[in-house]
C-alpha cells in the first residue's frame, strides 16, 4: 500500500496534490483496493463548482457504488476524461494516471486541514 509523501489526504480516502495554485484530486491506493475493479466513473464537468466534503462524483466497482468527496471547495478546471473509457486506470495507477479532477480552490488554506501521509497511513491502519 502506497502513501506518497507529497500528497494530502481525506478521511474518505481522496488525495490532493498541489500543482501551482491548483489541486489535482484522486482516490487513494487503499480506496481502490477496497473498491476492487473500478468499472465506471462519473465526474463533474469543467466549470462546475465543488464543495469541501460534498460529493463531486461516483466510482463504481462490479459490486458497489462509492461517492467521491471533494477535499476542498472550488471550481473544476480540468477533468480526466480518458477515465470514462478506461476506469481500470484508477486501480492500476491511483496517484498518477488515475487522477480525477483539477480544482482551483476558493480557499487555499482548506488544504492545511487535510491529513499528511503519516497521519493518513495511521488512519488506514486503524480501519483494517
Amino acid at each position, binding site marked *: 500500500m502506497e502513501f506518497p509523501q507529497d500528497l494530502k489526504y481525506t478521511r474518505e480516502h481522496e488525495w490532493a496534490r498541489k500543482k501551482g495554485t491548483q489541486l489535482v484530486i484522486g482516490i487513494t491506493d487503499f480506496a481502490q483496493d477496497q473498491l476492487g*475493479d473500478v*468499472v*465506471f466513473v462519473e465526474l463533474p464537468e469543467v466549470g462546475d463548482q465543488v464543495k469541501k466534503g460534498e460529493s463531486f462524483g*461516483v466510482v*463504481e*466497482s*462490479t*459490486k458497489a457504488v462509492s461517492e467521491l468527496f471533494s477535499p476542498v471547495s472550488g471550481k473544476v478546471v480540468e477533468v480526466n476524461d480518458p477515465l470514462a473509457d478506461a476506469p*481500470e486506470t484508477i486501480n492500476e495507477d491511483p496517484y498518477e494516471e488515475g487522477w480525477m479532477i483539477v480544482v482551483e480552490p476558493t480557499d487555499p488554506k482548506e488544504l492545511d486541514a487535510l491529513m499528511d501521509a503519516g497521519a493518513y497511513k495511521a488512519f488506514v491502519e486503524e480501519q483494517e
Partner: protein
Amino acid sequence: MPQRTPLYETHVRAGARMVDFAGWEMPVQYAGILEEHEAVRTRVGIFDVSHMGEVIFRGPKALEALSRLFTNDVGKTVDGQAQYGCLCRETGGIVDDVVVYRRGAADLLVCVNAANRQKDFDWLSGHAAGADVQNESDAWGQLAIQGPLAAQLLQRITNVNLSAMRTYRFANGEVAGIPCLVARTGYTGEDGFELFCPAEATPRLWDAVMDAGRHEKIQPCGLGARDSLRLEMAYRLYGQDMDDGTTPLEAGLGWVVKLDKGEFIGRDAMFRQKEQGLARKLVGFVLTDAGIARHGYPVLQDGRKVGEVTSGTKGPSLKTSIGLAYVPPALAAEGSTFQVEIRGRPAAAKVVKTPFYTHK
C-alpha cells in the same frame, strides 16, 4: 457470529477478501472480480459453495412428497438426473429456487440457497407427507469447478467418466480419492461441475483440484465473480430478483412451472395468475445511456415509477451495462424502452433477449 464453511482457513491463507453474505463469512474475491470472471469464461475457476444447503428426501414416499412441493416435473426425471425448479407457497410466492438431484425415487437431494437453509427445511419437513426429510447441510461441502477446461482437468483426478455425462446429470464416484457426488451443473453459463463431498474432506478436495488445475491455470473465485457470471446469463438470485412475494411466472421462470403435471403447492394460485394475466414481469435490459443500474433503482416511464431494478452490473464479458427489472407487461417485450433512475437522473434502457451472454 457469522457461519464459516470448512474452507474458511483455506480462503484466508490464500489471501481472499472475506465478506458477510447471508450470515456466512465468504470470499468475495481473490485476484479481482474481472480477472476471476474472465478465467471462468476462458479457462477454469473454482468456487467454494459449501454454504449452500442440502435437504434429503428419503423413503417410498420421497418422490411423491417432493413432487407436491416442487414446480418442475421431477416425476419425469431419471436416476442420476438433476432438475431446476421452485418451491412455492400456496400463494405462488417463491420459498426458494433449488436444484433436485434424483439419486433414486426414494433418495432425492435438494440443493437450497445458503440464506434459506432453515426456512426451506422447515417448509419441506412441514410438508413431508410421509417422506423422511433430513437437513444434511452441515454434513456436506460443495465446490463448483466451472469453465471450458473444467472437464479435462477434473477427468485426470476422478474415476467418473465425464465424457459420458451430459448437462444436468450426475454420478457418484471419487475425486482425488474422496467420495463425491459429481454433477454437471453450475451457475456460470459455462460447462462445469459441482462436487458434493463430506464436509471434513472439503479442504483436501479443494487442494487436490487446485493442484491438478495448475496445468489449466485454475483460478480461485469469490462471490463477486459468481454474481457477475450468473447475471450475464440472467440467472435469477433468490432474495434479490425474487422472494416470497413473487411467483415464478412473474420472475420469468414459467419454464420450470409445470401446471399440468398434477397437484403441487402454489399451482392453483399460478393457474389463476396465468388466466388473469401478470401484473409485472422480470425482464433483462441493457442501459443505452452511461451508468450502472443497481438493485432497488426505480424503473421510470414518462417520469413515473412503474417498476424496479433487481440486479445490475457492467457485464465483464459484454462491456455493457446490464440488469434485471420488474416492469409492467406492456414494457416487457423485447425492444421496449424505459428509463432507470440513477442518482436522480433518468438513464435510457432497452429490453433485450436473455441470456445477455452467449458463447462466441
